[in-house]
Each structure stands twice: as C-alpha cells, then as structure tokens.
C-alpha cells in the first residue's frame, strides 16, 4: 500500500527532473517540456496531500483538487501561448537552441 511519503518522493523526483531539464537542456522545446513536468509534480503532491490528510469529517480537502484543475488548464493555456512564441521564433531564426538567442547582449 503506497503511503503519502511514496507519492511525495515521486513528485519530488518529477520536480527535480523537470528542473534539471530546464537547467541542462539546450533545446527550447525540451526546456518547455521540463517546465510542464514541474507543474505536474505539484499536481501529484497536491492530490496526494488532499487524499491522505483528511478533514475531521473524513472527507479530503477539495480545495487542493480544485487547484489542480486550475493548474491543468493554466498549463494548457501556457503551452498554447508558449508554442506559438516558439513557432514564431523558429520561423524568424530557423533554430530552437538557446545558444542562438544572442541578439540581446550589451
């Protein structure tokens, strides 16, 4: 039977993998996937906290689960806008590598 700690561990792993992807990868699309992974890590632990820490009346605290819905929809909107920007960048520069973003330097 998995306990709260298991879920938190998995969520921590997801978060760190996402963060590592953001910091180490050089392709903007992969970086973006890492960012989405971080959001999903938060979703997982929110649901786990909500299911395991029951309220005095025996029900889970649904606030967290509603927050998860909001995070999912916001992530979808973020992906839509983000991909649009990345596509526009690709059309202008024919690249999606962060090293090629060098117009703005002083």
């Amino acid at each position, binding site marked *: 039977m998995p306990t709260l700690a298991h879920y*938190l561990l998995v*969520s921590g792993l997801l*978060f760190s993998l*996402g*963060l590592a992807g*953001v910091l180490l990868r050089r392709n*903007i699309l992969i*970086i*973006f996937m890492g*960012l989405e992974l*971080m*959001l999903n*890590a*938060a*979703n997982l*632990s*929110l649901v786990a*906290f*909500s299911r395991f*820490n029951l*309220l005095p009346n025996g029900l889970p*605290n649904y*606030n*967290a689960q*509603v*927050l998860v819905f*909001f*995070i999912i929809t*916001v992530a979808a*909107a*973020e992906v839509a*806008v*983000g991909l649009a*920007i*990345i596509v*526009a*960048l690709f059309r*202008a*520069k024919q690249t999606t590598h962060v090293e090629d*973003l060098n*117009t*703005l330097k*002083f």
Partner: protein
Amino acid sequence: MIDPVFLEVSVVVLGIFLLMAEAFGLAKEKSTLAWWAIGGLAAVFIGTFFIGPNSNSFEVSGFYVVDGLSLFFKRFVLISTILVLVMSVDYLPIVQRLVPAERPGAGSGEFFILPVFTCAGLMWMVSATDFIMIFCALELVTISFYIQVAYLRRSMSSLEAGTKYLILGALSTGFLVYGITWFFGATGQTNLVAIREVLPLIPVANHPAILFGLALVLVALGFKIAAVPFQFWVPDVYQGAPTPVTAYLAVASKAAGFLVLIRVLEPFFTVPSFQNKLFLALVLLALLTLVFGNLAAIPQTNFKRLLGYSSIAHAGYLLMGLAAIGDAFAGGAVVFYLSGYLLMTFLAFLILVPVTKASGGDDIAHFNGLARRSPGLALAMLIAAASLAGVPFTVGFFGKFFIFEAAMNQGLYLLVLAGIVTVASGFYYYFKVIRAMYWQPAPEDAGPVAITKTSSVAIFILAMLILILGVYPQLLIGMLP
C-alpha cells in the same frame, strides 16, 4: 453603491467587447480601440470611489478581500493601464511596421486589448487572499504578458525577449505551485487568513516543510519583482519588449508582485520562529538587489536596459522597506515609494517613445542634444531622471527617505549604509542621460521631436505631480491606506 467584484467583471466585459469589436471590424482605425479601452477603464476608475461594503459571498469563502490596500492598488493598476494605452497609441506605427499583416493594420488591434485583460488579472491579484486565487490571477497576468512581450514578430529582439520571459516566467510558476503544495501539505489550508490562524498551532516537526514551501514561493515572487538573484531575465526582456509593455512590466506587474509578497509573508511575521529566518532572507535579498542593480546599471548604454537595471535597484529599496516591516510606517513607505515609482517610470517611458520614433533607437546616444531639439521634453526627462535618482524636491527623494527612516528605526544600519552608497552610484548613471541631452550635440538633420497631444498632456501631468509631491508629500500620504 457598487459591489466591489463588479470592478473586475466590468474590466473583463470591456476586454471581451473590444475583442469582438476587433474581430468584427467595428473600429476603422485601430487606435479607436485604445480610446474605447481608455474610456472604459476611466469609468471603472471612477467606479472605485463608489463601491459599497463587500457584500458578496466571495468574502465568506475568503478568496477575495476588499480593504484600503487592495482598493488603492486597484486604482494604481487602472492608472498604469490607462497610461500604458496612451503610450501604445503613440507606439502604434512601430507595432504596425513590425507585425506581419495581410492587410494594413491587421494584427495590431490586440496590442490595445491585451493590457485590458492584464489589468483585470492585476486587479484580482491585489485582492487575492487565497493561493488558488493568487495563482489564477498571477497566471492571467503572466500569460498575457508573454504575448505582449513577444508581440513584434518581425523584431528579433522582441521574439527573443518573449522566449526568455516565457521560460523564466513558467519556471517561476513551477516554483510557485510547488511551494503552495508544501504550504497546503503542512497546514491543510490554501487560504492565507486560515493559514495565519493555524500557523502557531503547527507542530515544530512540520516547520521544515513550511519553510521549504516559503522558500519556493519567495523564489517565485522574487522573479516577479526582479530581486537578485532571480533578476537575470530583466535586462533582456526590458530591452526587447515593446516600450509600453516594458513600462507595464516595470510598474504594474512589479507593484502587484510586491502586494502579493506582503500578503503571503504577513502570516509568517506573526510567528517568532519564522520571523527571524524570514527577516534574514529579506535583508540578504535587499542587500544583493541594491548592490547588483545599481552597480550593473553603471556601464549600460541602452536606455531601456538601463531602466531595467534601475528597476532592479528600485526593487532593492522596496525590499529594504519590507525587511523593516516591523516599523509602523514601513508599509506606508513601501506604498509611497511604489506610487512615486509609477510617476517617474511612466514619465521616462512616455518620453522614450517619441524620442525612439524620431531618432530610430532607444540608446542613450539617441537622446543627444534633446535639450536643443525639444526643450520641454528634455526638461521632463530631467525631472524623471532626478526623481529616479532621488534628488531632493522630487517624489523619488521622499520615497527613499521614508524607507531609510523606517529601516533606521528597525536598526538595519548596514542596509541603510548600502542604500546611501548605491544612491550615489544611481546619481552617476541617471546623469549620463542628462549629459546626453544637455551637453552632447544633436545630429545634424535632427528637428524637434514630434509628439501626440495626449502624450504631452500625460507627460506634463506626471512631471508636475513629481514636483508637487516632492514638495508636499503629505498630499499622497493622506491618501495612503
């Protein structure tokens, strides 16, 4: 009497109306959309003076609070949005040149509509007292900013700035939600009022979880307010974004970020075991931000980039005010500083737009000889730069003065020392602009800078306000919540 929640609802309805007007081609000239938006927002601004007590069920559920502070900042946000729209009308030719369009003018209407939605998000943000609400409002603001920053699709720097803002903004969102997760896990609450109540009862064993969450949320909000070491997006994004969007980011987004920071940190200042750690973190952040922002600004040659670094420096003074929050007037000092910051930053950007249009760039060198080309604009820029630096008889001086006073009362002598030293370096880099305007010769063929009537009226009002409040700060202090 108006129910407070109608303020945001009417801003959203205004935004949807403008969107439909744009889609169905109701406005022949795109700038008409801007005038409608300005009119609508001005009506909402007047509406803020007639709101009744918060009678709706939002108050009961604890999602939404209407107090003096949130009302003050709702007006603050509305004024900023109106000024941004005024600036955008002036900026429209540049937008139309740099946005690919099938027909002339297509694709530039949304440039006036997105700020309206951003405004609604900011207004919700300053009223939010629940993490769910904070998250949603913050994301409405951030996502519409992604589009606005990357709006000029033929300008490589705008696209790059948009990509950088997208990645770092999404990163801070990730930190924010993960931090909220740990708050929820340790306290079982998402509501700040409820968290404040249960916080003293939390067993010590759960304190690390809360501190972990607090650190993550602090990082996320540090991105929004541009505190060092989370500032690295600021110079690039400020330089690359369209100028009105830069001004919007610099003022409204930062102010709302600070208000959320105050609301989130408030419960933790009441519990002694958190208070010390939080205090230490804020002092460190303030110190780093002050030193880095001011020193890195010195070698800049691009005016927007310079203002980016200066906005980091201003975040440092504001964080200093937050660190001194124990003092009775510290909160008021922070709000005063933000209001002064609105006036002087918008003044600088309002002058930058016509200068960019006339001289083809936004480097400090493009200001050369402005005093001979347009003495009025140069004088207004002189006032803005003096106020940003904190010269006496401007509102910027009193902003810094009140914050230093609050910090002195709290015994933060090191911070005050750093503040005074960095103010001196501030004098140097703002003076570069003044030197360019008054001592450098203008290019041969340069005539007076063309400027629209509305912009010049706005510039005049802002410059007068900076001077008046620099002599009688009591006028503004009386209005503080």
